[in-house]
């Protein structure tokens, strides 16, 4: 019974995906769009097969993932450290609140020309954009998390003479962790977008530049195949981030559940 109930959304979801594939297969035949612009599904699938068989594709995928992982790591570490320092010192928090709100909306793509000049098409230009864009996501969440610390717990820790390091480790960190995880999840998605954008526009090695090459050499089916790969990559990163979040915060959910009852 429960299995049937749970299976229905999966079946409906699969039927939605199948519908999309069918639509793309049929649209070029109806003449609504030309097959030159939107090749039918089977040609995109064939192109995807060709790509998967090529070493250059895997190298590009590796470059993209490498830039993503390094950039995300730098942004997360920097975001957590800066966030905790700012959050723990009230004066700093008051001073920086507006600046953070000011700096955050500066579009990361404004840095593209600078990155090109400084690093050319090296991986560093991708990293610069990825770190800039994902840093804010983590920082903002860490700041929210630090604000959420229970004052009673904080004061208790103080009166028991906890050192600042212990207060951060045992009072602040557990409270902030759920927020940090949300920040990392958002940052992971943003980092992928920026990694591929940088490769696409600057030409740094990776999936993005492969898309640009496919587009300029008129390999339309390959271009769609590569775009589908980036979409799947995004879905995979989302799912993985959600999985890690659930794993690390299982204790937290249960604690919250008890409080609610």
């Amino acid at each position: 019974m429960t299995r049937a109930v749970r299976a229905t959304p999966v079946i409906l979801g699969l039927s939605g995906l199948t519908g999309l594939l069918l639509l793309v297969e049929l649209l070029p035949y109806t003449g609504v769009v030309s097959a030159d612009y939107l090749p039918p599904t089977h040609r995109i699938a064939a192109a995807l097969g060709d790509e998967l068989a090529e070493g250059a594709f895997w190298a590009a995928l590796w470059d993209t993932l490498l830039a993503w992982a390094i950039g995300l790591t730098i942004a997360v570490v920097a975001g957590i450290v800066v966030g905790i320092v700012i959050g723990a010192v009230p004066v700093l928090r008051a001073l920086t609140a507006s600046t953070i709100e000011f700096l955050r909306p500066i579009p990361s793509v404004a840095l593209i020309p600078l990155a090109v000049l400084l690093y050319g098409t090296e991986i560093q230009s991708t990293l610069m954009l990825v770190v800039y864009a994902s840093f804010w996501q983590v920082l903002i969440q860490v700041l929210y998390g630090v604000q959420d610390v229970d004052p009673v717990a904080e004061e208790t820790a103080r009166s028991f003479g906890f050192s600042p390091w212990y207060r951060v480790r045992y009072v602040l960190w557990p409270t902030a962790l759920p927020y940090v995880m949300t920040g990392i999840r958002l940052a992971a998605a943003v980092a992928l977008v920026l990694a591929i954008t940088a490769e696409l526009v600057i030409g740094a090695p990776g999936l993005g530049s492969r898309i640009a090459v496919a587009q300029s050499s008129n390999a339309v089916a390959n271009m769609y195949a590569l775009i589908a790969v980036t979409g799947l990559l995004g879905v995979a990163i989302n799912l993985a981030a959600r999985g890690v979040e659930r794993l690390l915060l299982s204790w937290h959910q249960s604690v919250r559940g008890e409080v609610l009852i």
Partner: protein
Amino acid sequence: MSRVLTKVGLAVALPAVLFAIWWVATEGSDNFYVPPLREILQTFPDVWTWDRIRADVLPSLIRLAVGYTIAVFAGVALGLLVGGSRRVRAVLEPVLEFFRAIPPPVLVPVIMLFAGIGDTMKVVVIAAGCVWPILLNTVEGVRAVDSVLADTCRSYGITGANRVRHLVLRSASPQIAAGMRQALSIGIILMVISEMFAASNGLGFTIVQFQRSFAIPDMWSGILLLGLLGLALSVLFRLVESRALAWYHGQRRAQRGPS
């Protein structure tokens, strides 16, 4: 009065300090790529003259406005349709998740195929990139309509357009606003990217042009202008949002108050 002053002082202090550091650190800079801030600020009024603004900044902003408006209307309308039915939602959820996961800038080459490299391409790129966060947030918002209110509406026989307007849109609006805010930053990014790819005018085009001709202080002034633009738009958005959703923020404050 003094509280307001303190607040303004705190808000301006750090940017001022950062700018001062930037100024001092680059003052004697002979690095070709990192010119002194003084030079950048001196070039700023020379580069961004009224004519330049009309020729390059205005077209960018118009494209952004048109694309964004299309995305808002399409996103909310589709979101109402999808969010209204559990079955439709289940069918479309994986498809929508997939489309949302595609990095929006890769839309540029695709849409260039269909729409060439004119204004249409840029507007479509902006609309196609902005629509996903609005759509998905609307779906979530419609899903979370308060069941008591929904039942009340049903017993009073409020249906059709009235129900959508007074119940569904109203209760989904905080979520829709959250989606619109995300979409705005995506829109600015796509505005710049689409112009960097192929354009004969626009902010992104001009900045890349400066970079290619190694007019470094001009390029920096363009980056500065983009930053200011992003800031201005987000402030504007927040103003509009806090007016339009005043009832919601008031409610939240009232709920938080006693605790």
